[in-house]
């Protein structure tokens, strides 16, 4: 140990500390300064822990405290507070650079260091200064703009007051700062791992290192004798069903007799410190008997394949879709293309690792004590029900902490099950804060799709037929699996009118990581095949791919692949908005193909369903004593800006200032069960339920003339109203034809990628992406463009770099997380066609931006080089191999 004296945020401190302790842990664990975050397992890969030390930006996870005698440290908490923020914090809020907020404290400290040294930095200087700070939400564009804005503030060129929208600028369509943004900017927003509980047990979990095995024996006798150990938790200790059921009862909290993928949890050690728990884990003896591995869906469907789950066949879901007569249409078509497309297993990659806190609150009335779970859920009421059943404890509450992104991964209960089970078993508070590597092992992944496709057209270039026979790698557990296959079928024909469709989706259990929700969940994979086939067919017909898409747009009165006729379809207007950009891009690309660097242009489109058949939601509102409105709705906000949406819709509809809207969204104890923050449904479903509740309240206020809760109740009317939204279309697709109900609305998008391929190295550099989108009237422009920019960045990663390989992908480096060095120019075109059933005409936009991106990138590579990459990701190795084969 060593005694060190150092200055933190202007206060001199003396600490006696292990020589291995890093500054991040001193700040978070000992000083309670939790603004700096831990994401990359202290490898210096993410920059979320960046602080200022002796006027330089340092990654505090790499700085040993023993080396810091006399150091001057400034953390984000030392920069400003929500009541008295620093100008850089103001700039990040006003530029819309804060989504989930997990990377924000590190970004702000990197900005402070840069701007102190270089008050008016160039773009390259900004990129250099932020090269070690990762962000998954924003695509970095607004972070760069925030740094530039902060520079202007600091140089005195403009003030925050001049930038901040005023009351005269209206509510709808104005970029009012997110209600939660300043707390994130100042490091006062509590993420799960930021909570400290004195005396809490820390957990370490033993996970399978092999994909399929029988558990023969478990010996914990030596582990239980280790220092600080409270005990070991196995499946036998769990009082409930031990099953975390979303759609199918197949995933255990802790495995009992078998493990089914690399990462399956076997047992948990609880100890006074995480280090002691991990040390004891090393003393556990588990004997596993390997079983045959189901490596892919085709192998798992073989007659000789072992059955992964005794209760369910490996081919666990199958849904055909038949519209018209494909075989007859194929015979009469002038041109047919046929191809096989594959997408990879991918990690959703929220920057915040998985985390759960569980503690007990005493029931004063003498009932069972209440177990409180704090975690990253995007569906707190549903997850509460799952946990109650799995753990056998009814009196439970779930609180959603601030959440560092999720992108679908938190549609499932993950670390909550083990943490809750341990809290019940040991009757103690518990913290389960896994590493990034363990978080990657334990969480769901984007499903891999294997698609065999035919697309046909007549001699005039009108689409005639489409076949897509796709296999979905379900992985070891079902989660929402068949919903993903169904969503692919519900949106199968994309933006286009295809009179004859023959498709089949099959979902197959394997020993791969279990698939679940991932931004878009199904359509990004299926649309990759369709929109690449569109370019293949346009090429064969000799038609420009832009004109081919426009010619084949669905029109009001025509039907999608589900047979549902659409009433509105503003896609052609988006194409027209893109036309001049496309012509410019094509001309520029043609002029840049003579050397080894070949430039290409690619298009992708998407019609993303909003308002799933059968979906319902509720939201409660209450008139407050001062005439303000309290909203009670479990609308999770892991970064999209749902707090803005609820606040701005309420203020707009009721005609009150934004600061009179009070949100209650995080606690099952005081929120309506509004449903998941998934499927781009929050604005449409919860927003509609909110408007319905406000309509009731407004009518009561108008009828009575009351303006406060006291006056309303004095007039004999309730102050609180429950609003509902129920979609009219409901029920499943027809099991034989796949025809049937559809979404209530769509968000439409067109994307154009301009890129450059190095034909020697196979490397791709994206130069620019232009997105045209129509999501209805815009509630908050910064939030909308923030979703699109982040989605473009994520889509390019999906197309070119990212892949999850179990056992190999274990941090942000091996994942190939996009950095600010990968950024490209982005331009967004917005159209605002009113959606009659949307809340104040709006829809949702969180996932659409992922749907057209991969095909646009692959089409652009083909345009540049002449080769098709049909197996994502399009790595330099694959491109080089394709170019060599073509030569």
């Amino acid at each position: 140990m060593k005694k060190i004296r150092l200055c933190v945020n202007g206060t001199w401190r003396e600490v006696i500390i292990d020589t291995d302790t890093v500054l991040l842990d001193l700040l978070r664990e000992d000083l309670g300064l939790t603004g700096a975050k831990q994401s990359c397992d202290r490898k210096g890969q993410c920059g979320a822990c960046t602080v200022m030390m002796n006027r330089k930006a340092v990654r505090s996870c790499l700085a040993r405290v023993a080396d810091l005698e006399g150091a001057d440290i400034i953390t984000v908490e030392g920069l400003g507070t929500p009541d008295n923020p620093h100008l850089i914090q103001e700039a990040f809020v006003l530029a819309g650079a804060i989504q989930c907020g997990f990377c924000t404290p590190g970004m702000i400290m990197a900005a402070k260091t840069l701007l102190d040294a270089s008050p008016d930095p160039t773009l390259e200087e900004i990129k250099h200064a932020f090269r070690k700070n990762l962000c998954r939400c924003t695509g970095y564009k607004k972070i760069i703009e925030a740094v530039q804005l902060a520079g202007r503030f600091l140089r005195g060129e403009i003030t925050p007051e001049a930038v901040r929208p005023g009351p005269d600028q209206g509510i709808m369509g104005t970029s009012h700062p997110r209600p939660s943004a300043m707390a994130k900017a100042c490091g006062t927003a509590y993420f799960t791992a930021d909570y400290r509980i004195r005396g809490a047990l820390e957990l370490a979990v033993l996970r399978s290192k092999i994909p399929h095995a029988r558990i023969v024996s478990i010996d914990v006798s030596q582990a239980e004798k280790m220092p600080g150990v409270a005990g070991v938790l196995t499946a036998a200790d769990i009082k409930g069903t031990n099953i975390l059921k979303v759609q199918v009862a197949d995933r255990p909290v802790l495995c009992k007799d078998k493990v089914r993928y690399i990462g399956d949890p076997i047992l948990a050690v609880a100890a006074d410190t995480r280090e002691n728990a991990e040390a004891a884990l090393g003393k556990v003896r588990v004997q596993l008997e390997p079983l045959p591995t189901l490596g892919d869906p085709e192998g798992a469907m073989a007659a000789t394949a072992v059955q992964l789950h005794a209760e369910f066949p490996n081919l666990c879901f199958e849904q055909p879709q038949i519209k018209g007569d494909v075989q007859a249409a194929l015979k009469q078509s002038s041109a047919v293309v046929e191809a096989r497309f594959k997408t990879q297993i991918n990690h959703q990659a929220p920057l915040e690792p998985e985390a759960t806190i569980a503690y007990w609150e005493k029931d004063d009335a003498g009932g069972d004590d209440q177990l409180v779970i704090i975690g990253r859920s995007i569906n707190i009421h549903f997850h509460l029900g799952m946990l109650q059943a799995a753990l056998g404890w009814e009196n439970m509450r779930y609180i959603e902490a601030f959440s560092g992104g999720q992108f679908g991964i938190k549609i499932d209960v993950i670390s909550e099950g083990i943490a809750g089970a341990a809290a019940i078993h040991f009757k103690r508070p518990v913290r389960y804060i896994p590493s990034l590597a363990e978080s990657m092992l334990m969480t769901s992944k984007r499903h891999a799709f294997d698609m065999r496709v035919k697309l046909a057209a007549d001699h005039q270039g009108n689409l005639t037929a489409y076949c897509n026979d796709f296999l979905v790698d379900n992985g070891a557990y079902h989660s929402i699996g068949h919903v993903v296959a169904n969503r692919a079928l519900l949106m199968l024909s994309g933006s286009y009118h295809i009179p004859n469709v023959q498709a089949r989706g099959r979902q197959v259990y394997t020993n791969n990581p279990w698939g679940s929700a991932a931004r878009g969940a199904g359509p990004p994979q299926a649309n990759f095949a369709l929109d690449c086939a569109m370019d293949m067919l346009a090429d064969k017909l000799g038609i420009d791919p832009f004109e081919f898409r426009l010619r084949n747009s669905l029109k009001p009165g025509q039907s999608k692949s589900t047979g549902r006729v659409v009433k509105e379809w503003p896609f052609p207007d988006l194409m027209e908005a893109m036309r001049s950009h496309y012509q410019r891009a094509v001309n520029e690309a043609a002029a840049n193909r003579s050397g080894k660097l070949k430039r290409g242009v690619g298009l992708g489109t998407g019609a993303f369903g909003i308002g799933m058949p059968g979906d319902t939601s509720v939201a409660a509102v209450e008139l407050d004593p001062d005439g303000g409105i309290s909203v009670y709705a479990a609308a999770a906000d892991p970064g999209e800006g749902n707090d803005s949406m609820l606040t701005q819709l309420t203020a707009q509809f009721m005609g009150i200032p934004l600061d009179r809207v009070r949100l209650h969204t995080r606690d099952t104890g005081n929120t309506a069960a509004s449903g998941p923050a998934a499927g781009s449904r929050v604005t449409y479903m919860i927003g509609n339920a909110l408007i319905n509740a406000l309509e009731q309240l407004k009518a009561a206020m108008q009828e009575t003339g009351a303006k406060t809760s006291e006056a309303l109740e004095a007039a004999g009317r309730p102050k609180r109203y429950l609003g509902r939204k129920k979609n009219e279309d409901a029920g499943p697709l027809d099991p034989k034809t796949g025809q049937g109900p559809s979404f209530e609305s769509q968000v439409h998008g067109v994307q154009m990628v301009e890129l450059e391929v190095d034909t020697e190295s196979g490397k791709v550099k994206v130069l620019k992406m232009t997105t045209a989108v129509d999501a209805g009237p815009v509630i908050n422009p910064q939030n909308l463009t923030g979703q699109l920019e982040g989605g473009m960045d994520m889509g390019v990663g999906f197309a070119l770099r990212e892949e999850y390989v179990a056992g190999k992908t274990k941090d942000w480096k091996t994942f190939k997380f996009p950095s600010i060095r990968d950024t490209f120019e982005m331009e967004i075109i917005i159209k605002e066609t009113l959606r009659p059933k949307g809340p104040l005409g709006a829809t949702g936009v969180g996932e659409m931006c992922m749907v057209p991106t991969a095909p646009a990138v692959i089409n652009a590579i083909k345009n540049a080089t002449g080769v098709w990459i049909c197996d994502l990701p399009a790595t330099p190795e694959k491109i080089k191999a394709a170019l060599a084969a073509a030569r």
Partner: protein
Amino acid sequence: MGAPPSGKGKDSGRSVRVIAGREVAFDDDGFFDDFEDWSEEVFEALVHASGMALITDRHRQVVRFLRDFYAYNGRAPLNNELRKGTGISLLELDRLFPGGLKNGARRLSGLPNPKTCS
């Protein structure tokens, strides 16, 4: 999120039955698809179909509490909230309805299925 797959995998979805003269949609587990489809008449018909011999004031008290609680809060109560709100012990509450509180009382009161995603 739709209904779970059964066997080889089809969404069996909801079913619509005519009860006490009105069409009522139920999910796979027999929960009301729509809170508003519930009525006293529908409740009594369902109770009789479930094999319960008699509807007592206790039953009506519990059902009224559950419906009022949901209409106010937009969620189902925890058992402790139900106990405090009705003054009935958990043991008695659990015995009142076939299937207990979650699958009996909650279902017959027209509250959403706790297993549904939304």
